[in-house]
């Protein structure tokens, strides 16, 4: 046997490899110009909401929250869908995938690292948009307070108006709304990654992802038809198809409790917990299934 240098035992472990891939993915995605355009459009959408100044202040806050949370919802979804759809095809096309998998990195670690990188991007994007939202809410709140003090003076009526404005402006449940938006986008990211493990082009992945997103919002309708026989019974074929839709597609309607938060309605904590738990389940399952598809893919 030659006196070849012995390779050292691997000093890292699963998490360190996943971290390295995640950090690299985040760095790669943050450098994309599309990221900055998305943030800019989200900021514009929120800024436009500040124009609703002629309305009563409660409505102003609702419009602002609707616009901001809606913008964050749309742009975070678009961001993760586009970002996730491109990472795998790009690595395959550039053959960086081979270089990485030629290291002691399993396909699962690779996939998980990529997904973690996208989640980090989502966190960064939502953090920035959240800051902008907080700023817009702060400005609107203070403008409304100034107006109220001007109209009602500094006496008890004015103070009551100020208290009502503050109550309508920032509510702690807004943080839960942000968490729900994050969860919904995280599900979309995991789903898009799953699609990209067997898709042949990123455009296909994006298109299917968009279709699944829309179907996911009307999924409860499909479920209702499948489970309830009301009036005319649907045919066996239709029932089977609707059943398949219910089983495969995620139910995104469950995350629209954000609307209730915007109008200031109380949402039970248990509902949040269930929604987050369900989201975690979706992400886990989609990641595992994505790995299974990826593991058998010929590179």
């Amino acid at each position, binding site marked *: *046997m*030659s*006196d*070849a*240098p*012995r*390779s*050292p*035992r*691997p*000093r*890292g*472990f699963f998490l*360190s*490899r996943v*971290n*390295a*891939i995640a950090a*690299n993915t985040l*760095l*790669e995605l943050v*450098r994309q110009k599309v990221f900055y355009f998305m943030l800019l459009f989200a900021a514009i959408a929120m800024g436009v909401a500040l124009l609703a100044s002629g309305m009563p202040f409660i409505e102003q806050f609702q419009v602002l929250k609707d616009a901001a949370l809606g913008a964050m919802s749309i742009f975070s979804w678009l961001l993760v869908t586009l970002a996730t759809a491109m990472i795998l095809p790009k690595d395959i096309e*550039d*053959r*960086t995938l*081979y*270089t*990485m*998998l*030629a*290291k*002691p*990195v*399993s396909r699962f670690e690779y996939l998980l690292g990529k997904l973690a990188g996208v989640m980090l991007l989502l966190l960064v994007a939502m953090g920035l948009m959240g800051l902008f939202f907080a700023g817009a809410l702060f400005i609107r709140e203070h403008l409304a307070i100034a107006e109220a003090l001007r109209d009602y003076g500094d006496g008890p009526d004015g103070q009551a108006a100020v208290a009502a404005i503050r109550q309508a402006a920032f509510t702690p449940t807004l943080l839960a709304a942000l968490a729900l938006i994050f969860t919904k986008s995280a599900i979309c990211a995991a789903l898009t990654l799953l699609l990209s493990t067997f898709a042949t082009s990123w455009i296909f992945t994006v298109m299917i992802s968009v279709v699944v997103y829309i179907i996911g919002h009307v999924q409860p309708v499909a479920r209702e038809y499948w489970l309830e026989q009301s009036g005319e019974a649907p045919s066996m074929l239709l029932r089977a198809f609707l059943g398949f839709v219910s089983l495969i597609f995620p139910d995104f309607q469950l995350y629209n409790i954000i609307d209730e938060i915007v109008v200031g309605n109380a949402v039970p904590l248990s509902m949040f917990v269930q929604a987050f738990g369900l989201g975690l389940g979706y992400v886990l399952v989609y990641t595992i299934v994505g790995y299974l598809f990826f593991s058998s893919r*010929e*590179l």
Partner: protein
Amino acid sequence: MPFQRQRVVAVEDLSLTVEPGQVYGLLGPNGSGKSTTMKIVLGLVAPTSGTTEIFGCDSSHVSSREQVGFLPENPYFYKFLTGLETLEFFGKLCGLCGAALRARARELLALVRLEDAADRRIGGYSKGMLQRIGLAQALIQEPRLLVLDEPTAGVDPAGSREIRDLILAFKERGITVLLCSHLLEQVQEICDRVGILHRGKLIREGKLDDLISIENQTELILENASPPLLARIREAVAAGGARVVDERRPKQNLERFFLDVTRGKS
């Protein structure tokens, strides 16, 4: 039929062994199965039947790759990373970290003569620099086996010579090398054994010297031989029952000439 994928047999009945410390050249025309063979060795593709082992470890296991460094053809790395960051990234994938990783990365950058470009983004690297950084990342975890796919493709003669010298240095250190190349002259200079693939089958395999030497011919190179001496040699050859096949002045190769001229100019 439209949606039916045609089955292609990329590699068939392939059986080869690369001894530790050897430089093995895998040759063949385009489409002969070289890339597929390398992917099987690296565990990127699963063979339909059969096994591949790297130092006794099944190559389909991730752990086998701890001992393998791979340089793909036309390597492409993340453009936004610097040379140093690229090596550190791949080092982390191999379990290295901290000061030890940084030191190892700098050591390899010095080995491949890229210290000055360590902090430059990969996007600004030339072809030769990309090959060298590719070699460096292949060595990051001190592998016992190097798999090199066209390591000198697209590189200028000077860069090519450097890479070849590096491979010879690896061989000196006992690192096993499996390399694919179209540049047969370079393969001839560095490989101990070669295997030739054609349409997925290994048609010839063995020690290089054994394969390419012409058994019944002997080469004799003389210096300062006078014409009478040459005439006497020709007579002796004929008297011995042999035949002078060719008589000519040996030439240095164009690469050597090029290097001598350009180095002299620089």
